[in-house]
C-alpha cells in the first residue's frame, strides 16, 4: 500500500469513527443508535485492518477480525436483545441536554481533545507511524463524546452505548499510538468489556423487573 492511499484510508476510517459518535448524539431512536454503534465497530475494525496492511502484520490482521466480530457483531447483538425485551421504551425521550446543545458540546469536546492530546501528537517521530499518531485526537474525541452520552442520557440502554463509545475510543487510541498493548492485555480487555456488557444487560432486565422500566429517573432510592 502506498503512503497516500494509506493516509486516505486511515482518514476515512477515523472520519467514520467521529461521524458515528456524533450520530449517536443526534438520533434518539434506540434501534438507530444501536445500528450506528455497529457501524462504528466496523469503522474501528477497518482502522485496525488498514494499520495491519500498512505494517504487513498478520497478528494485527487477526486482531482486526476480532474487533470486527466483537464490536460490530456480538456487542450490537447483545444491545439489540436487551432492546427487544424492553418493549415500549424504544426512544430516548428526555435526555438531560437537548440535541442542539449536545451537538455543540461535541464540537467543544473535539477542540478539547485536540488541545489535550498535543503532547501525544508531538511525541510522534516523523516517519512510519506518523499519520496514525496525527489521528489520536479523533480517538480521544470519541472517548469524550461517549462520556458525555453516559452522563446525559436517561435510558439505561443509552448509557450502555455511551460506555461502549468510550471503550471504542480508547481502543482506537490504543491502535493509533502503538500497535496495541500486547496480546494478553488485549484479550483481557476485550473479555472484560464483553462481560461488563453482559452484566449490564442482565441488570437492565432486573431493573425492568423491579422498576417496570429502565428510565434512570426511577433510580431514586439511594441518596443522601
Amino acid at each position, binding site marked *: 500500500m502506498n503512503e497516500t492511499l494509506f493516509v486516505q484510508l486511515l482518514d476515512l476510517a477515523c472520519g467514520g469513527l467521529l461521524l458515528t459518535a456524533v450520530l449517536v448524539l443526534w438520533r434518539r431512536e434506540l434501534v438507530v443508535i444501536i445500528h450506528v454503534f455497529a457501524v462504528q465497530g466496523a469503522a474501528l475494525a477497518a482502522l485496525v485492518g488498514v494499520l495491519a496492511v500498512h505494517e504487513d502484520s498478520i497478528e494485527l490482521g487477526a486482531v482486526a477480525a476480532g474487533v470486527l466480530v466483537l464490536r460490530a457483531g456480538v456487542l450490537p447483538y447483545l444491545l439489540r436483545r436487551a432492546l427487544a425485551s424492553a418493549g415500549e421504551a424504544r426512544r430516548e425521550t428526555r435526555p438531560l441536554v437537548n440535541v442542539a446543545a449536545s451537538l455543540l458540546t461535541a464540537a467543544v469536546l473535539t477542540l478539547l481533545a485536540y488541545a*489535550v*492530546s*498535543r*503532547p*501525544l501528537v*508531538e*511525541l510522534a*517521530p516523523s516517519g512510519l507511524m506518523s499519520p496514525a499518531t496525527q489521528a489520536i485526537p479523533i480517538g480521544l474525541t470519541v*472517548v469524550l463524546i461517549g*462520556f458525555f452520552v*453516559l452522563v446525559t442520557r436517561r435510558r*439505561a440502554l443509552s*448509557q450502555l452505548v455511551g*460506555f461502549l463509545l*468510550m*471503550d471504542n475510543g*480508547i481502543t482506537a*487510541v*490504543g491502535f493509533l*499510538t*502503538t500497535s496495541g*498493548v*500486547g496480546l*494478553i*492485555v488485549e484479550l*483481557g*480487555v476485550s*473479555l*472484560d468489556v464483553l*462481560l*461488563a456488557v453482559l*452484566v*449490564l444487560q*442482565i*441488570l437492565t432486565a*432486573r*431493573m425492568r423487573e*423491579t*422498576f417496570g422500566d429502565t428510565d*434512570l429517573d426511577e*433510580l431514586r*432510592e*439511594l441518596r*443522601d
Partner: protein
Amino acid sequence: MITLLAPIIVPVLGALGYVVAGWRRSTAWVSAGSAVLVLATAIATALDVARSGPRTAIAGLLRVDALSAFMLIVIGAVALLATIATPAFLRAEITAGRATARTATRHSVLVQLFLAAMALAVLAANLGVVWVAIEATTIVTAFLVGQRRTRAAVEAAWKYVVICSAGIALALLGTIVLNYAASRAPGGAVGLDLAALAANASMLDSGVTRIAVVLLILGFGTKAGLAPLHAWLPDAHSQAPAPVSALMSGVLLSVAFYAILRVKVIADGALGTGFARTALAVMAIASLLVAASLLLAQRDYKRMLAYSSIEHLGLVALGAAIGGPLALAAVLLHILGHGLAKGVLFLGAGRILQVTGTSRIGDDQGGVRGLAARHPVLAGCVGVGVLALIGLPPFSLFASELGIARAGFAAGMGWVTAAALILVLVIAAVLVGHTSRMLLGTPPDGPGAATTTRHLPWPTAIALVGGLLACATLGVTAGPLSSLLHLAADTLVGAR
C-alpha cells in the same frame, strides 16, 4: 513458583468446587479454607521475599515483591474474617427467606472468583494485567451487590457497574498512553512491565506521562472510592451482603489504591515527586470533605461505614502524597488496620441488620437503639470496632495515623495535614455520636422484626473478636511485619 500461583489458583478451585457441589452444610467451610490457604501462602511468600528479594513466575507475567506480598497478606487476613462469618450469615439469610441455596452457591462462587481477581491484581507484573484484574473484580462483584434483588440493591449494582467501569476506562486510557510513552522512550521499548517502567521512568516523555498519570490516578481512584468519582461507594457497600461489604471496603479499595501506589513510583521518576503529590493531596482532602459532610446527617449505619471508608482511603491517599519511607510504611499499616477494623464492623453491621431488620440509626421514630441491652457481645464488638476505626490506641490505626501526620509535618505539608486532621476529628466525633445512639439507651418495645436467634453464632463472634484483637496487636507491635512494611515502603521510594 507454586506459592506465587497458589493465591490465584486456590480460590479458582474453590469456585469450581462450589459450581460442582453447590453450597450446603458440608461445603460451607470451603471458602474459609481457601482464605486460610491464601493467607498461609501470602505469609510464606512474604518470608521468601524478605529473605531473597522479588521473584517472578510464568514468563515474567507474575511478579512478587515486598509490596505485593504485603497486599496478599491484607487480602488473606480480611478474606479469612469475612469467610469465617459467611456460613452463619448465609444460613440466617436463608432462614429469613431472603436467599435460597442457589443464591448461597452463587454467592460463594463469586466471592472465590473475587479473591482470585484481587490476588491477580497485586501479583501481576504488567500494568495492563493489573487493569484487567481490577476490572474483573467489578464484574464478579456486580451480582454480589445486587444479590438481594430489591429496588435499592438493583439500583446500587447498576450505579456500581456503570460508574466503576467508566471510571476505570479512564485508567485503561491512561495505561495505553503510558504504553505509548514507554514505546517512544529512548533506549528501546519498555512495555508495561511495572518494574521496568519504574526503573526507566526518567526516560519517559514528561508531557505524555503527565496525561497518563492523571488518567491512571483518576481511574483507579474511582475504584478506590476517592472523590470526585466516589458516588457508587456508599450505595454498593450498603447494599451488598455483609461479608461482601467487608471484603469490598476492607480490601478491594486498597487493592485499587495499590495500583495508584505503583503508578506513583513511575510518576515520581518521570515527573518529580510534586506532580502526583498534588493530585493525590487534592483528592485526599476532597474525599475527607465529602465523608465529613455526608456523615453528619447520616441515618443509615451501613452507609455510615461506607463514608468512613472514603475517609480512610482519603487518609491513605494523603500518606501516599506525602511520600517517603516513613509515610509509606504508615500508609501500608493503615491499609491493613483499616481492612481488619472495617471488616469487623461490616460483619457486625450485617448481623445487626439480621437481628433488628432495619439499617437505620436509632432516633425517635425507630431504628436501631439500645443494642447493648439485648445483644451485648455484638454491641461490644461494634462499639470497640468504631473506637478502633477512629484511631484510638492501642489499635493500629492510631499508630498509622500518627505516622502519616508526623511525616506530613516533616515533609512541609503542614497545612494540608492539619486540615486533614481536623476533618478526621470531626468524623470521629460524628461516628461516636451515631454509634452511641445505636448501642446505648433503651431498646425499642416489643420483639421488633427479630427473625434470627438471639445468640451471636460462634464463628461470627470469633471473626469479630479475632479481627479486633489482630488490629490491637498490630497497634502494640507490628512484630515481624514491620520489616516487611519497611521493605515494601522502600520498593515504593525506589531505594531498593
